[in-house]
Each structure stands twice: as C-alpha cells, then as structure tokens.
C-alpha cells in the first residue's frame, strides 16, 4: 500500500513512504513534523493549511501527498531565511495581523502568492483574495493592513 515519494520541502529533499490516501497536510505535519501548517477544517474551506506547491498557494488538505512527488513545497517554516523575517511576516507583526496565530501561516502563504501576481493591490482586491482563508480573531481588519504593509515593503525591496 505504501507509495514512495520524493519532495523538495523548504529546500530540503525529503524521501519517504506514504499511504495513497495521506493528505499533503498530514504528510507535512505527521511525517515531516512541520506543524506550522495547521488543519482547521475538513472541507477545504478555512485555508489554515495553505502552503506553496511549485510556487503556487494551495490548500494542502486538498492534495494527496503522492501528488507532490517530484515537486517543490514551501511551508511557513520555509518563508524566512537567515533568521530574518520575510516582509509578509514583518507586516503581520507590525500591523498586529495575528492574535491566536492559528490561521496566520495559511494567511501568509496565501498572501505571498497573491502579492506575486498583484504586487500593488487595493483593499478590495486584498479582501477578495482572502475569501478562502478564515480568521476568527482579527475581523480581518489588521490582516488587510499587514498585507498592504508587506506589499509596500516588497516593492521597496525590489525597486
């Protein structure tokens, strides 16, 4: 029943055996102990499990682990390098975009992908982009500001 997979996760090659039914979210949490990816629902609605697969944000509970064989996966643990915060992490800190922190990894993974395709979004565009990510603590108010903060910072850095 076991299937062998090889995945590049946060820049490290991971090889292992998984059941065919194992979700990517469970593989990351249980097999790789990357518990920053959270599971908030069972209907692919809440977005807490959002990660990047080959650079695109996806809900890791909608993919099977076997589907990412040969792919590159980035989780929240791989967002920042060298101990410094990624602009999106900095945005969430500066603008108080998190309270309990449970939805935060998914929000940030969603937002970083969104900002790639829309580096200078309006407030309306940010709110629409967050449709698939639930937060119960912040009323989304400061999450919007956090993403705006990151957008500005990332443009500055790239300019």
């Amino acid at each position, binding site marked *: 029943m076991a299937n062998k997979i090889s995945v590049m996760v946060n820049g490290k090659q991971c090889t292992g055996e998984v*059941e065919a*039914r194992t979700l990517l979210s469970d593989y990351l*949490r249980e097999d790789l*102990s*990357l*518990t*920053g*990816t*959270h*599971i*908030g*629902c*069972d*209907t692919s*609605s*809440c977005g*807490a499990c959002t990660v990047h697969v080959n650079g695109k944000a996806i809900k890791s509970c909608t993919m099977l682990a076997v589907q990412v064989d040969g792919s590159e996966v980035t*989780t*929240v*643990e791989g*967002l*920042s390098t060298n101990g410094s*915060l990624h602009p999106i*992490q900095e945005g*969430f*800190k*500066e603008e*108080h975009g*998190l*309270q*309990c*922190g*449970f*939805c*935060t*990894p998914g929000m*940030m993974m969603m937002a970083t992908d969104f900002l790639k395709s829309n580096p200078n979004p309006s*407030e*309306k565009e*940010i*709110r*629409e982009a*967050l*449709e698939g*990510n*639930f*937060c*119960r*603590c*912040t*009323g*989304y*108010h*400061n*999450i*919007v500001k956090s993403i705006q903060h990151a957008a500005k910072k990332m443009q500055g850095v790239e300019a």
Partner: protein
Amino acid sequence: MTKYIGKSVKRVEDKRFLTGQGKYTDDIKMPGMVYAYILRSPYAHATINSIDVEAASKADGVVAIFTGNDIPESIAGVPCGWQVDFKNGDTMKEPPHPLLVRKKVRHVGDGVAIVIANSKAQAKDASELVDVDYDIHDAVTDPKAAAQDGAPLVHEGVPNNMAFDWELGNPKEEVAAALASATHVTELDFVNQRMVPNAMEPRSAIGHYDTAYDKYTLYTSTQNPHLTRLLMCAFVLGLPEHKVRVVGPDVGGGFGSKIFHYAEEALVIWCSKQILKPIKWTCDRSEAFLTDAHGRDHVTNAKMGFDADGKIVALQAHTYANMGAYLSTFAPAVPTYLHGTLLQGLYTTPKINVDVTATFTHTNAVDAYRGAGRPEATYLLERLIDLAALEMDVDPAELRLKNFIAPFDGVEQEGYVTQVALQYDSGNYAPVLNKALEMVGYEAFREEQKNLSNGKLLGIGFSTYIEACGIAPSAVVGSLGARAGLFESAQVRVQPTGKVSVYSGSHSHGQGHETTFAQIVADRMGIALEDVEIIHGDSDSVAFGMGTYGSRSLAVGGSAIVKSIDKVLEKGAKIAAHLLEASSDDLEYEGGKWTVKGTDKSVGFGDVSLTAYVPHNYPEGLEPGLDFSSFYDPTNFTYPFGAHIAIVEIDKETGYTKLKRFIAVDDVGNVINPMIVDGQIHGGLAQGIGQAMHEGAIYDDTGQLINGSYMDYCMPRADDFPSFEIDRTVTPCPHNPLGVKGAGEAGAIGSTPAVVNAVIDALWKGGHKVKDIKMPLTPERVWTAMQD
C-alpha cells in the same frame, strides 16, 4: 513614568507564530503515542439497545475500544459549575452528563465509544465497524417548544424539560402598572439565534499517565487549565489533584468555547491509565460543530414603555433560554446573571422585570460565547429602543441621550445602583455616542438617505451598550450560584540577576498577555521589557488560576500582578535601605533604582536582586529571596460601555445587504496597549456582525444540525466587512489598581443590534414598516420583508 504603558508595543509572542513554531496541542507528539476517535450518536434522541465492538477490535492498528459500559460507575459525568435555583427555591435540575453514553443519547454528537489506534485514520476506520443498535425517538430542539406540555422529554424526572426558571428586578405587577400608564409601549418577539463559536483551532486533548511518577498530564486546548484540573480531578475522575498536571499550551482561539471542562479531556486521561500509553484526540471541524458548546439561543418577548417626554418608564422581558441536552460548565449563569442583570443598560429605566425559563432540548450544550448573556441583553434593549424611536417618529440618537444615566466617576460620585442587582463602577455615556455621531457625519447621512435614487435603500442603526466584565468578586458570584471563586493569582519571581519571571493564572489564547502583562511589569519595576517573561497555562508552574474569559485577564489577572510587584518593591526597598544605610522611608524608586531622596545616593534593582539571593550584607531578620505571590479578588465587576453605529445599503431587487460602514466608540477604561485593544475590538465586531448578517446554527425537527460544516455554516470572510472606524473614550475603573475595564467582548456585544437596527431603519425609510427580521439577515429574509 511610563515607558511602555499606553504604547502600542509590538507583541513578543508573535515570532513563534509567524515562523510556524507555535505549539498547539495537536502539534505535540510523544513516544508511543496512540490516537483516539470518538464514535458519536447520529441521532438526537435514541435508546442504545446494544453496542458490538468485536469487528472493530480486530481492525488494523486498533489498541483499545471503550464504551460507556466499560467506564466504572464510580466515575461521574461532567459537572456544572454554576447553580441557579428555581423561583420556588428548588435547586435547578442537573441530570448527569456521562463521559460516554450508556443507555440514551440526547443530541447528535453524544459520545458513544472511544476507539484508540496507532493512527487517527485507523481509529476512524475501525469506528465504522462498531455496530450500535438504536431505537430512535422524537426530538425537540426549540427552547420554547421544549417547555410545552407533551414535548418529548430530554431527561427523565425533568418535567416540561425545565432546567430552572428565574426572575429578577422589580415585582411584575409594578412593571405592568408602569407599562399600563405609558404613553407608548414597544413590544417585540424575537430570536437571538444559536451561534457556533468556531475557534480556528479545533479542540484537542492529550492524556498521558506516567507510571514512573504515578502522575497524569493533560495537554488541552483550554482557556483555563486550573479549573479544568479541579473539575476533572474532584468531580469526574476522583484523582488526587497534585498528581495531575494540566497544560493549555498555545491555544488557537476560544471565544468562550474552551472555558469548559469537556468529556474528552477526562476520557483521554482515564484511557491513558488503562492502556499505559499517551493518547491524542483532536476533533474534526464537523465534530467541533456538534460538540463545542454553542452560544446564545434565546427566544424572547419584551416590552419597553415610554412617557410623553420619551423617557423609559418600564421594561418587561421574558426569555426561553436553550441549555441543550446537558448543563455545560457555566451555562446556567449566561441567561441569568450575565443577561438579566444587564437589562438596565445605559438607561434610567425605573422599573425592570426579567423572567427566564431555561429548558433542555435534544441539541448540543449551550454556554458562554463571546459576551455571554450581555450580547443578548444588549440586543434586547437596543432593538427595542431603536424600534420605539421609529414608532414614535423621534430620533434614535436623541432618544438614547435623553435616557442615559448621568455621569459618575465612582469616586466623587457613587456608583450607579441598577434595578437588576448591580452597581456600575464608573460611567460617562453621552460622549461615546456623541463621538460616534461625529465620526459618522450624522446630519449629512440623513440627507443622503432621504435623497437616494439608485434602487437602493440606506439605513443607519445604533447600539449603546454596557457590559459587566472582569468577573469578579468571589463572594458576589458565590452568592449568585458560582461553584468556584473568581479571583486571579500571580507570582513575580525576581531572578538573582534582576531578570523577572511572572507566573499568571490568566491564559492567553490570542489576547497578547505575554506583551501587555510585560508592559505593566517593566514599567512598574523600571526595567526593560526584554527582562520580563510571562509564563502561563501550566498547572505545574503557575500556583493557581481561574483562566481567561469575561474580559477578566487584565482587570483581575493584571491587578494580581500589580499586587505582587508592590510586594517585591516593598521588600526591595528594605534591602536597598540597608545597602544605602538609609531608612526605607527616605527612599524613592524610579527608573529601576532606589535613591535617597534629595541625594545622588542610589542602588539599582539588579544589585538589590543579587543581594536578596547572596545575602551577605543583609538586613537582620529579613528572609533571603525576592519572589512574591498574590491572589487578587476584586470588589466589583468592571463596566465597559460604548456606542456602535452601522450603515447598510440594501438592494431593493434582491434584498442583498451590504455593510457600508461600521463605527465603534468604546470605553474600556485605561488602555495598556492600544494596538492590542483595537485588535480585540475588531475581532469582536466581526463576530457580532457575523451573527447579524451571516451565521447561525440550524437544527431540523429531528435534531440534525443541518449546517454543521464550513460548506454550510456561513463564516464571515474578509470581504464581508468594511474597514472598521473605531475610537475610544477613557473612563477609568475606580476599583482596580490599573483602572482598566476589559476589552475582549465589547465588539461582539455592541455590534449585532446596530446592524439589525440599520436594516430596519432602511426598510422603514423605504416605506416597509417591519418590526423584525430574523437573524442572520440573509438577502432572502430582507427581500421577503420588503414584499408587504
């Protein structure tokens, strides 16, 4: 001198959450850990004829299966922590709430068996092989229907499903006479619908029995580890409390739903002893929908009378409150002492009577959900007064201003004594409303509303609220039925190097205690924020705690910290006086050092700390060390208040309602960290607006929760909200050392009626004189209201 207090200090806890290093219960793994899945009843009301676990026991990976019959009779059910008596003096009906049902299931989701296997998937697979034979019975889900003769009974020996009835305030006859003499009476029948709390982290519990130390550890997603330990040890499992450690690690939101002691916590602890392995249980979201204690669910009739000048002369309210199938930890307090006692609101109403009938139904338990009783009280008052303004054709803001209690600071002027058993601490109500009116541009809005010609309707809704927070004085809550004290503890431990560890009985699950508390400590002790660490959530390190709910952490937990700081500084002054060869009376403490007044002779906090632990040159008779604990029991609740205004736009063709603006001016007393307080308000607003416009649990007649998933239950999303416009006034609390009142629930308390009032206002201005639309205000409901 404040370097930190009043500043938006960025949160010290953020880094671990931002980098994926937060440790929630489900993130914890132990060697040899096994996984539990709880098989639950698919029926709301049924008798179990038999349970056959034979096939399931042989399934792959199964370690053990326990049913209700495997649990010894000596183990009690989950207890209720608040007793409310019937009007006639009889004790409330408190039927047992077993960990696993033996004979009769009473709601969909009632636990029937626990299946433990080497993986969660295996446990789930095996649970499908458990064969339960049920006889299905009729169910009742509505709290008013449950009280009628002939309704299906939830528990034997509880006639008319009545858990208790309760009354407070002036005699009914006096209220009736005042209403009879009123110039205008507004009457409303309405439902405050059932809400699902939906903390984003699903509940999780790990039970671990350590044979070496004969000690149990429970990791659980809880808002109050110590109370969970007390209830579980003393009332459920009969375990010695000192042999049980309860840890609430990082917790992903609570909103009330994680205050309570749940059956699963006791189950994993008991099972871990049976199989001698650590057991993890984490619920799925659909399981959370069925078993996390719900909120609200009131069916109410209320009348508010006015004299010819528009002054309120009387209020009569009757509420049927749904308890669900069992009494959850604080459930009886919610519709009574957290609801009836708030019906004075901000108004001078001279006659008030509130009558509550609490019933059992074949539904999941209902208990405290953000605001707990106070949102229901505010909804009642604020719907009535706004509707009265429409009926009497007077301005809703002016009608409120006319009825507000006059300002009082609780120092020069006495606290305001209400008709419903409370004494408000301090209040100044007109400024919050006036500020909100200014922010919204009231006169300009009314012009815009009149002149609208785009196929839309515009409406404005008000809500001015008060809440009782910082719960609170133990003797008071004890007299009201609480079976626990509601103080808080704090220990301030100064290390020999002058670094400070603070152990708090409050529990942060998003509120930012590790920052706010540290700001208080750093400022009061004159040391750097980085030199303070706040430790919470572990019964083995924190002396005791009553946990976090009821906006109590800062007012009660923060005040306990202040008490301990005072003790540290008092002893520190004695050591400093010895080192400076001065009298401690001649010293002043500022900027982290004791100075002999009028001189440049001083000694720093670090030197004093070291001397306390290396007491070579030391005051005679003084104990070494610098480490103090305190228990703070307040003298009163705190009473935050505020004014909220909603502006909505309704599409006449579809009934689609857009929330265009939301203005909130709240007074939560002194503010330690404005950024965190604003965040608390934002989150509360979203939950209150969510109730008005989107959310609500729906049980069908057979007791099935028909919207028990995120595909069906409408969770508010980012684009459901405008950017909130918030501000505050500051009226300090006169009775705690920080002058704080609490901010956790304000947003959820004020916002719901403001939104509904705005929709009703829009409809009236559009010629549809409807009194009520049931929440949530779906386009279909709003459209139907316009088809008169």
